[in-house]
């Protein structure tokens, strides 16, 4: 190319990235976790955000804590039950995420977690606290192999009836072709 390229038109100044704003202290989550810790001193507060709080307790005390969250704090609406396989520390985690439809906490989700060893994991069911957790727990049972003691029906919900491999969401289960 012999012709000189025309000078580039003046570029508009690039928008400057806004300086990172200091995050406001999650006051509500802090107040809520203080209430929980006051009643259950052995509860570990995992993280707090503006509209979220996650606490961990022992499987033996989770039912009591869940009842407290439902009746005294107002988290009456189960959102999801999630599981996490922490294979490095040889633990399985179950998290109940509960929201609220009562005024005051409608924008808030509290996560109540428990951890058990990966070998023979048994935790109590929380159907009595949140009846809506029934299918969620059934799914967590088949996907992670966690036994929810007291659950009326832990047969396979999403997996085929004849599935006899490892629970698929465990980290040591490898998808076919991977």
């Amino acid at each position, binding site marked *: 190319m012999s012709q000189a390229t025309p000078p580039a038109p003046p570029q508009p100044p690039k928008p400057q990235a806004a300086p990172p704003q200091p995050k406001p202290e999650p006051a509500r989550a802090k107040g809520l976790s203080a209430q929980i810790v006051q009643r259950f001193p052995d509860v570990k507060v995992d993280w707090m955000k503006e509209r979220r709080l*996650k606490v961990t307790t022992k499987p033996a005390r989770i039912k009591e804590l869940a009842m407290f969250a439902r009746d005294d704090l107002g988290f009456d609406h189960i*959102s999801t039950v999630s599981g996490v396989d922490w294979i490095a520390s040889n633990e399985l985690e179950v998290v109940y995420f509960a929201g609220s*439809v009562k005024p005051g906490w409608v924008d808030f989700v509290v996560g109540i977690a428990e951890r058990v060893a990966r070998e023979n994991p048994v935790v109590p069911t929380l159907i009595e606290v949140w009846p809506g957790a029934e299918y*969620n727990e059934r*799914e967590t049972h088949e996907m992670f192999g966690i036994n929810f003691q007291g659950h009326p029906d832990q047969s396979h*919900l999403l997996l085929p009836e004849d599935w006899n491999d490892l629970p698929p969401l465990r980290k040591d289960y490898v998808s076919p072709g991977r």
Partner: protein
Amino acid sequence: MTVESEYSPDADRIMAVSLGPQHPGAGHFRIKLWLDGDFLVRAEPDAGYVHRGEEKMAEYRNYTQNVPHLERPVILDSSNILLPYAIGVDELMGNNVPPRAQYLRVIMSEANRIISHMYFLGILGIFVGHSTMIEWSMGDRDFWIDFAERIGGARVTFAYVIPGGVRNDIPQYAIEKGLQTCDWFEKRMDEYEKIFLKNPLFLERSEGIGVLPSADAVALGATGTVLRASGVKHDLRRDEPYCVYPELDFDVAVLKEGDSWARAYVALLEMRESVKIIRQALKKLPQGPVRLKLGPQPRVPAGEVYSRTEAARGEMSYHIVSDGSPRPYRLKIGTPSFKNLRALPFLLRKVHVADIPVIYWSLNYWPVEADR
């Protein structure tokens, strides 16, 4: 679950029947029924026929690769299933999503809400033997699919909402055409109300059928249209505002009846609000970029997030755990259909067999979304 004693004087009278899964309107989903003559004694939903392991798949793909497959569970509501994922990843990365992208996210999720509700009402019409409804709604739904196609480039799965913003900008003519569609559709909904929702034939089939009291709706974890039709005014667009919903003026539709009719009517009321939202958002759309440059493999710091938004069927939520690697360590999708599934065996008690399709479909249940 116990068998109601008044219906089981002796076990020989009870007949077990399988409804589905060969798509008899149920859609890749089976309901096990225990019948005493024409009466339903007990029902048990059997989900899982279309389970694809989306959550396991997500652990093998990075945060950008996860976008197209995560919208597959509910292709007619695909922007709404991606929105909480994008919001969650944005939160983990600390992304400051540009305002124009926030508006476009709202526009697309409201368009998807209308597309989804139109499908819902159409199939409900078929289930009660009102064929006009499916013909009207499938035809009119196409105008909204056209609207979404002008923005997203595809007719069902747009992969439009992505972490850091939206995939592309809206063309100017799509704004003008979109405002026309809003005006036309608003008038059209009056006709829907007359010909379908207030039609004596439809009222006869749906009024007082499958009543879900509000206390039970909350306890069973029902969400979205099911919850609001039972008199609980809970809508995350208002209660836990995200994107630019606080800047827009809309009402939350809520009804007290809790029956199948209310669950259908609340969907129509919501579509009216969606049109209002889309019109305002199209007019207010600010200038500016629509996405952040994150690269093909975004770096997501270690952390944990729980994000939720109001999808067409209710609360869509993601629990994302990142360990700092390019792929999510754990990604849990909480879909509204799965949350509403627990209400089905509760409602399918002491009802006639002929009422099963109406109750089932009034829950706005989408098997693929529930199975993931």
